[in-house]
């Protein structure tokens, strides 16, 4: 087990290296010049050139990549070209809001979607099933920003139940923190609710046809224990898998959600950095994302072994 974890962690290094090189070369061939944005509209070309030299943007690709990689090995992600702040600090500031948003979204999605899927499977073919799954498809097909605006309008502006926007750090209290995250996580969660509900229903249907469920039924066990204890436990593997791959999608959706709800998270930092060509920040973020991705998939694999003792590494 320990060996497996170690191997997995070591095998992430090439992944992250590939991601880094890929993104670096992508940015290198991309047009757009941070020096221009910094200098402002009235600046002369000479000014821009001076700034470019001062930022080291005039040096060749390989030199810059080598230098950057060398610094990464020393745990230094560099400093932002625009703010002059260390990238680690910029990312650190943004980590809490984004992680909070993701965790709440994930929990909310699972709490809503799994029962939905279970009920739909249990009542398969009935109108309840159709309504639930119709909702799931709908959740799939509406862009997240549309959902976000409608939620903000109804629950914040009209009903005045929740704040329109913003983020309050957890340190300011549990409720203020949570209150700001409710609407964004529902908006962001729509897709996951749909996704998880559908996969849950499907896996449950598979499991419910297995012999041991029939046996349990024959023994006279009630519906609820059958559904939630026996069936769900065995249907869990595909569900966990979907949650794992959902992470990358979740980060993507967070970009939009953070804009709509003015949450100072990583998604917005990323878009801002791309639009301004703040190379060190983009590099740092992408490395972080690939790390999170690898980590989540590692956790998912570990959960497999817990769910299904037949799986060994």
């Amino acid at each position, binding site marked *: 087990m320990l060996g497996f974890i170690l191997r997995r962690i070591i095998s992430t290094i090439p992944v992250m290296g590939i991601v880094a090189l890929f993104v670096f070369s992508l940015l290198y061939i991309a*047009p*757009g*010049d*941070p020096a*221009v*944005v*910094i*200098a*402002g*509209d*009235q*600046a*002369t*070309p000479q*000014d*821009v050139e*001076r*700034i470019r*030299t*001062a930022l080291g943007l005039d040096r060749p690709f390989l030199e810059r990549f080598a230098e950057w990689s060398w610094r990464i090995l020393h745990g230094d992600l560099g400093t*932002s070209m*625009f*703010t*002059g*702040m260390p990238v680690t600090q*910029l990312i650190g*500031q*943004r980590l809490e809001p984004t992680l909070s948003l993701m965790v709440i979204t994930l929990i909310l999605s699972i709490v809503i979607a799994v029962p939905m899927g279970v009920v739909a499977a249990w009542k398969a073919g009935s109108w309840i099933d159709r309504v639930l799954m119709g909702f799931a498809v709908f959740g799939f097909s509406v862009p997240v920003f549309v959902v976000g*605006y409608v939620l*903000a*309008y109804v629950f*914040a*502006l009209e009903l*005045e*139940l*929740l*704040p*329109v*926007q*913003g983020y*309050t750090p957890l340190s*300011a*209290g549990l*409720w*203020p923190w949570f*209150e*700001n995250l*409710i609407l964004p996580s529902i908006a962001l969660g729509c897709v996951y609710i749909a996704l998880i509900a559908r996969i849950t229903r499907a896996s449950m249907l598979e499991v419910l046809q297995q012999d041991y469920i029939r046996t349990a039924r024959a023994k006279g066990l009630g519906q609820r224990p059958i559904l939630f204890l026996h069936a769900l436990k065995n249907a869990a593997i595909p569900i966990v898998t979907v949650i794992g791959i959902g992470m990358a999608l979740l980060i993507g959706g967070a970009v939009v959600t953070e*804009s*709509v*709800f*003015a949450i*100072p998270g990583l998604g*917005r*930092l990323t878009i*801002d950095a791309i*639009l*301004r*060509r703040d190379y060190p920040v983009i590099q740092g973020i992408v490395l972080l994302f690939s790390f999170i991705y690898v980590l989540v998939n590692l956790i998912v694999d570990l959960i497999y072994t817990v769910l299904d003792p037949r799986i060994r590494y």
Partner: protein
Amino acid sequence: MDRRSFLKSSLSVGALAASGGIAAPAIAQGAAKTLKFVPQANLANFDPIWGTQYVVRNASMLVWDTLYGVNDKLEAQPQMVEGDEVSSDGLTWTFKLRSGLKFHTGEPVLAKDVVASLTRWCARDPMGLMIKAIQKELAAVDDKTVKWVLSKPFPKMRFALGKNNTPIAFIMPERIAQTDPFKQITEYVGSGPMKFAQKEWVPGAKAVFEKFADYVPRSEPASWLAGGKVIAIDRLEWVIMPDPATASAALQSGEIDWWETPIPDLIPVLKRNRNIKVDIADPLGNVGSFRLNHMHPPFDNLKVRKAVQMALSQEDYMRAVVGSDDSLWQLLPSFFTPGTPFYTEEGGDILKGPRSIDGAKKLLAEAGYSGQPVTCIVAQDQAPLKAMGEVTADLLKKIGMTVDFVATDWGTVGQRRASKSPPGQGGWGMFHTWHAGADCATPAAYNALRGTGDNAWFGWPNSPNTEKEIEAWFEAKNADEEKSAMARINKAAMDDVVYIPTGFYKGFQAWRSNISGVVGGPLPFFWNVKKG
């Protein structure tokens, strides 16, 4: 938990929190001395000499002070100086600092700080560069006195040091001002009325300013950058909101107090709300620009430029940019800012009256235009530029030109417009931008109007006539001479089509009605703004 009980519990907890003053809306109303402001853009860097975006200038105006400051008539008034003296030959300027000036660290502001700050500013500012070119000596005479010796008189000295155009001559401590003007400062200490809470700065999300208790405001009433900058709030939070729909909702719910740039189409909703006040943000507005590349076909040909000029409908551009409210825009047969003392429409007739599509087609035929594509580089992430770009695509098609529409972001436009290559090889044919009306009041800081060819601003217009008249303006000895020089500049630049103004437009600002003291101007002024 089902939906109803969930909402019920959230309600009760919300009420509890509100009474305890923890919930977010409660903070906005509870602590009356914190002002929440949504600025026009993200404060991504904070060095007003190194970076010259307006948003940086606006924030810097709180933290750093200036020797002079312009009032609402754009006249430079003493701010940090007690007074100045000009020698009779106009070559030696002596500035004396007023007493009580202190940096946020507690150290007094000394003449050596002024010398270092002006030196750094001179390297970056167009007017500063002109002074630097004729500078003989810039030195501290004593702790309170600075002497500037020139080889030629520079009558616009006070304006140069007090103007609101970027970069502004901010006074920083010597150790900070010694930073290379092309490198960014990392410490934000000034002697302005508010301190920058660097620890709370989250670029892209939030910037916080705190009242500087030791600031001694002037006794005169405040007028824009001049007079007493009295801070009546304890704390100012800049909240960055990239989404206008969100900012609008937040203002309506009272989560923010003041929104610098509400989009015009949302103004009716805001006006309907009794708790919100709306007014023109900047009487000096903005000048929209259709910038052409004078270096390459087709716009290297004056007739082609003229063709576009006579067909271009400023009304179309302005409606696309500011929407349906006609009080927000006006036709601009001029390169200068309407409402300023030297405004002129000399030579601008071609932009007035019915637009001539047929005339444009005829001119294009005469010019021998044979369908070379016009490469339009259009920033999609800047709403006014995106809107203008769409009108342009439509216009050029109407007069029979081929459009190569490059939809991209502002960062790319910024880089690509610097390329002097032909449009097909990474260059460009036209792009849109806008200039703040405050910058276009006179030729003083108006780079975009210069016609110095290869050395001119992007597009590289070569207009010796314009240049000649701009020179005449700088040497003008009185208002009449200035006025007539500007009329001749306008005519020359119109004739050569240095660029095509797409109209003059203003924007709104909106604030909660419990805020008082908000005034219109080229930047938001936080002094004398009260809450509650």
